[in-house]
């Protein structure tokens, strides 16, 4: 299998294009997905190839077009709805929680909503308080939807395909700082990636660092740094935030007995808390010490670089937390 270098953005683009080519029922809908080419340029050129019907520029109406996506899914289509960023998804939560997540159960299993919603998430681009949210945790709280966070280029391409094949709503969070990342992608047609399991991104024996999405690279950087001091970290990329793959986490804990969770969301009542609680429930007697969290400071994310950096998880803070847990 040959490989080639490609950006995360292009991986998303490819996956979109192939999905549109492969299935008439698939269409992409969202603000500026068409002539603008997508706020993050993921859909550039697609309107020229697939036309205005299937690359559907939507008015600024998040609740309206997300709800329309749900309805279209009920009606036999396979919509990919792009909410430009998670920040605007606040306007569409009623449709997601009260319709997409609920219709199957509430109808006694009659209906299903094969809908994919993609959105950019996270801070790191100096966009200030209203444009830097990480609300993955809110979505991960809701039964009836699946939530994934592709942190790698392979996942950016492969998870979209699997999500589209899923009969239930899947929310894909793409961290906005990843789009320009480059990496190798195997040339293969068979690139669907599972959307339920975590991945060991780095294997190690001293401590488990658990993270996802935009924090994976920072966590890997922290692990590399710690390795220089002889601290051997295992890094878990959760990949799926709902469901959460407990088995992979607990297996790692059985080996390392210590964990730090890294999550760009605000600390209180976020995803890191859930992972910590699960470890406490399922691996308590494996633990050699408290589970630590490295999260965003509980402030609206400020604009200046130094404050944004201070507000969000960074390799040095992750390393420091690991050292503290290890008392080294």
């Amino acid at each position: 299998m040959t490989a080639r270098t490609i950006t995360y953005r292009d991986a998303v683009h490819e996956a979109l294009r192939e999905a549109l080519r492969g299935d008439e029922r698939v269409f992409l809908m969202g603000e500026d997905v068409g002539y603008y080419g997508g706020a993050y340029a993921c859909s550039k050129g697609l309107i020229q190839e697939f036309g205005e019907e299937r690359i559907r520029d939507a008015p600024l109406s998040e609740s309206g077009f997300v709800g329309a996506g749900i309805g279209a899914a009920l009606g036999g289509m396979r919509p990919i709805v792009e909410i430009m960023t998670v920040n605007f998804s606040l306007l569409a939560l009623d449709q997601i929680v009260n319709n997409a997540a609920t219709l199957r159960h509430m109808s006694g299993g009659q209906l299903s909503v094969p809908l994919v919603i993609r959105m950019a998430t996270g801070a790191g681009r100096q966009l200030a308080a209203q444009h830097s949210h990480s609300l993955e945790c809110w979505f991960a709280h809701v039964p009836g939807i699946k939530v994934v966070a592709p942190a790698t280029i392979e996942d950016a391409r492969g998870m979209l395909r699997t999500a589209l094949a899923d009969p239930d709503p899947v929310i894909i969070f793409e961290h906005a700082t990843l789009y320009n990342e480059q990496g190798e992608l195997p040339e293969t047609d068979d690139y669907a990636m599972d959307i339920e399991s975590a991945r060991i991104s780095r294997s190690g024996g001293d401590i488990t660092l658990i993270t996802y999405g935009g924090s994976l690279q920072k966590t890997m950087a922290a692990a590399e740094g710690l390795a220089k001091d002889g601290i051997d970290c295992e890094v878990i990329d959760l990949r799926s935030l709902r469901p959460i793959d407990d088995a992979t986490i607990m297996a790692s804990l059985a080996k390392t007995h210590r964990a730090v969770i890294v999550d760009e969301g605000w600390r209180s009542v976020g995803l890191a808390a859930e992972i910590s609680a699960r470890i406490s429930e399922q691996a308590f007697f494996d633990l050699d010490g408290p589970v630590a969290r490295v999260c965003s400071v509980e402030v609206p994310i400020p604009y200046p670089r130094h404050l944004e950096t201070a507000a969000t998880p960074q390799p040095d803070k992750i390393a420091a937390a690991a050292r503290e847990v290890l008392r080294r």
Partner: protein
Amino acid sequence: MSADNQVSLSRAEAMALLGQMILIRRFEEKCAELYSAQKIRGFLHLYIGEEANAVGVMRALSPDDAVVATYREHGHALARGLPPGEVMAEMYGKAGGSSRGRGGSMHIFDKKHRFYGGNAIVGGGLPLAVGLALADKMQKLNRVTCCFFGEGAAAEGEFHESMNLAALWQLPVLFVCENNGYAMGTGLSRSESETSILQHAKSYRITGQDVDGMDVVAVRAAALSAVGAIRNGEGPRFLENKTYRFRPHSMFDPDLYRQKREIALWKTRGPVLQFSKWAIETQLLSQSDIDGLEEEAARTIDEAVRYAEESPWEPEEDLERDVYTPRKVEETAR
């Protein structure tokens, strides 16, 4: 009743219209009783007084069309032809209910009848209807999605967004605003600066008309013409049906905000009363026809109650069923 509409009404159609209205009326009266008997719980929003709307509109739809309604949707479900036993069992919360009892009175679903709820979030069904219509249009299926909602919903942002999407994309949606004058206890003039919901619809370049929602013949005629235009590819249509609920908003509502006189006045225009009187006057139907319809409704309701009573409860072990689709070898996206 408007003279224009009488012409085209056959005896069979008149029987159907009145039969459905009577069925809904008696069914809901029974529900009120069953609510007091604590067989039906939660919220119960009766449609009594508004029957002409569901009945008149549904006559214009074909089985392939889709329906989206609100929490006040038992009438719509019955008019759409859902089995009354299943509707009643749903009100009970029994496993034999339309939605396996999971939803209760506010969430009646029936995929076979393309009846997509039952939505307890005011305005929440509007974008769904837009999406169903979008799917039809993209699949080149000549179907209509009919969306019922109250005038209160017109204040929600989702109303605005849905009108715009439907008009912008010229989707085959029939919007039916059941304007009963009140959103819970808030009269329309206290919630809308422009109290004509039709004017709002028009501001999106949607064609529509005001309809006497107490007159089933008028509703039917308006719906037929609107559905015809939609099927003809002319885009969405809007009906504002002026109607009234004879009962309080829900079984919890002490109804402090309306005048007794107002209610009494509207009752004189009640759709069952009005249509019966007219049908007899015009000799389209006889009193014994009507008596027959009453008897049939009574039998149907007895049967529905028996079905509901006998239907089992969903076992507790099934609580977590159908949150997600069971895993099987899935078709892939390509």
